[in-house]
């Protein structure tokens, strides 16, 4: 059970949070092709390594925030608010 640090409530067990998958996905306008729309909806890098994802502190303050996390070791490399620019983290591929 991971320990995630909510930017507002501090470190809590993973089961207080919900993960919504990859973050920093740019939502295209309605004019894009079906293929581009499909890529936006479904296609993900799914890296074995550093993953930028978003979590919500469901059982706490209800806030969404971003996490950079290694999907192999589960090490949390960065936690930042939705409005903060993404910090660089070691080990992130191109």
């Amino acid at each position, binding site marked *: *059970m*991971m320990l995630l640090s909510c930017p507002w409530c501090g470190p809590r*067990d*993973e*089961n207080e949070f*919900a*993960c919504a*998958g*990859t973050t920093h996905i740019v939502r295209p306008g309605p004019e894009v092709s*079906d*293929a581009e*729309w*499909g*890529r936006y*909806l*479904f*296609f*993900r*890098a*799914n*890296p*074995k390594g550093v*993953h930028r*994802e978003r*979590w919500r502190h469901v059982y706490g303050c209800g806030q969404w925030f971003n996490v950079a996390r290694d*999907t*192999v*070791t*589960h090490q949390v490399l960065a936690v930042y608010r939705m409005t903060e620019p993404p910090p660089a983290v070691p080990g992130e591929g191109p």
Partner: protein
Amino acid sequence: MKYSALALLRGALSGPDSWSPAWRSPEPKPEYEVIVIGAGGHGLATAYYLARNHGIRNVAVLERGWLGGGNTGRNTTIVRSNYLFPESARLYEFSLRLYESLTRELNFNIMLSQRGLILLAHSRHDLDAMSRWANAMRMNGIDAELLSRDEVAAAAPLLNLSPEARFPILGGFTQRRAGTARHDAVAWGYARAADALGVDILQNCEVRGFTRDAHGGVTGVETSRGPIRAGRIGIAAAGHSSVLARLAGFSLPVTSYALQAMVTEPTKPALDTVVLSPGTGAYVSQSDKGEMVLGASLDLFPSYAQRGSFALTQGILASTLAIFPSFSRLRLMRQWAGIVDVVHDSSPIIGPTPVPNLFINCGWGTGGFKGIPVGGWTLAHVLATGRSHELAEPFQLERFYTGRLIDEAAAAGIAH
């Protein structure tokens, strides 16, 4: 050599040396007609059917670790074809029928145990949903029966049948031909049979890149055991599909999650069927060894770590006790996780990729085991002929652009 009771007797008289290796450990050849990446059930079945159905025997199966060491050996071994949509029903029913003849086909006892799968209805709404499900299965030509509460009780007397239960049991529905099979045996049986047909199974052979021709088509792979050329390449790598896709320069609608399962210490027979309670998430069977096999549930965040979260372990066990309260004093003995490839509609992807000569079988998510025979059959078909098998046509990458998803989980309100 042929396996039989007689062979066992011969082995007893003349010792271990009378047995021959189940498969060879060959050195890689510089080139194969077809390379299959991943020696799990799907990859091995693909190689077997390439040889058996299409006469293509110059085949290598490449495996990073040990054959059958991934999800094939990490699931809860359940086979069934209780699907709503005709497309899925055809696919999984074909798979179940292959399973039904697999022991003799492979001369390897996969211990297919068709002890039935019961889904529990905890509300009248559940009963209605199961009525739809059972009728849809019958439309698809698959056995399905609705069960009264008493029939459920007779099949699994240790269930919590109290009307005061938090999740009372009102009835259920069953597919009697569903059940379990010995997971290792499926991998080993296909491996042995494929090997006997000339397929090279190359273990400890990790794919590190693809070689390409001028048109971008794949011509081979770079591996930890050197480069190997191939005319066509198939990927059957489950949770690692995205990693291989990235090496080949495309992406997939796949996210990898850890699927957790566990067993208790073995006890004498106490449960004679497979029980699934969609309302609580409990999924319980008892193995031939006597262990209660529990799970499987996903840690709901992306993961390539083959271990599960303790919070989920607690959740799985709490759900188990909600329907089997007497299991409280059994002890949890082993717990593990496999990395599964989950797509939005929980249905597989079997067919070409954007890269010429490269084909894929992935997206089985939590249900890959039951799909092994058909996954191998259809990937072999597209590798051999260049055309998708009729059964696999609805299961192409294209559906993520057209929106023609085959979303059993959404329709049935239960994850497969």
